[in-house]
């Protein structure tokens, strides 16, 4: 059970491909910084490989004016929620 942290916009298709290949069946993905753009409904298939086990950081959404443009399949978490994900996942890998 691993937490994957991703900070790249969905334009970085190769990075998203790498994450999807490393993503296990119990893993969870947290979108931070420019990866917030992948949480928009218009972002297309970028999050399809992650089976709905995806969260996005509220503070970074707000900073980008995206707070009301989040796909319903993506859970919004604040910094405390980010910390809680690191508590429940023993290992955390960052993709950038």
């Amino acid at each position: 059970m691993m937490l994957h942290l991703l900070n790249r916009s969905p334009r970085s298709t190769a990075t998203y491909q790498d994450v999807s290949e490393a993503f296990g069946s119990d893993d969870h993905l947290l979108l931070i910084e420019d990866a917030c753009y992948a949480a928009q409904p218009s972002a297309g298939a970028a999050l399809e490989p992650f089976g709905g086990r995806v969260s996005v950081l509220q503070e970074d959404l707000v900073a980008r004016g995206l707070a009301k443009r989040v796909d319903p399949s993506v859970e919004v978490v604040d910094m405390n929620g980010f910390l809680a994900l690191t508590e429940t996942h023993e290992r955390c890998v960052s993709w950038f």
Partner: protein
Amino acid sequence: MLNYALLLHAAPYSHQAALSALRFADTVVANGHRMKTIFFYHDGVHNASALMAPPQDEVHLADGWKRLHQEHGTELLVCVAAGLRRGLLDVSEASRHGVMSHSLEAPFELTGVGQLVDAMLTSDRMITFAP
């Protein structure tokens, strides 16, 4: 309570990563965990500059790291090899290399990557923030 270590690869103010890391560290201590070690690596060493002087109405990242050390005992470890290449030297390294001034002071410490491995082994969580 968990022991957290952070690895920061990004320069201050160039990317969001340094601010993300500081915000995460503040959340760690606010929730009763221990923010044990922050390791500054690659361009992240610039976070340790004693000469940093951002505008007063902006976040002062170096002061943020120092506050974590003063209030929570967080170790602020700077990779010596990455620091020397980028002009981050403490008094003794400046003297050893014959340069006129130094740019790194306590509570930041110049250390080797062995300390990073040690932080990985002795912390419950290691979180990387990169550009």
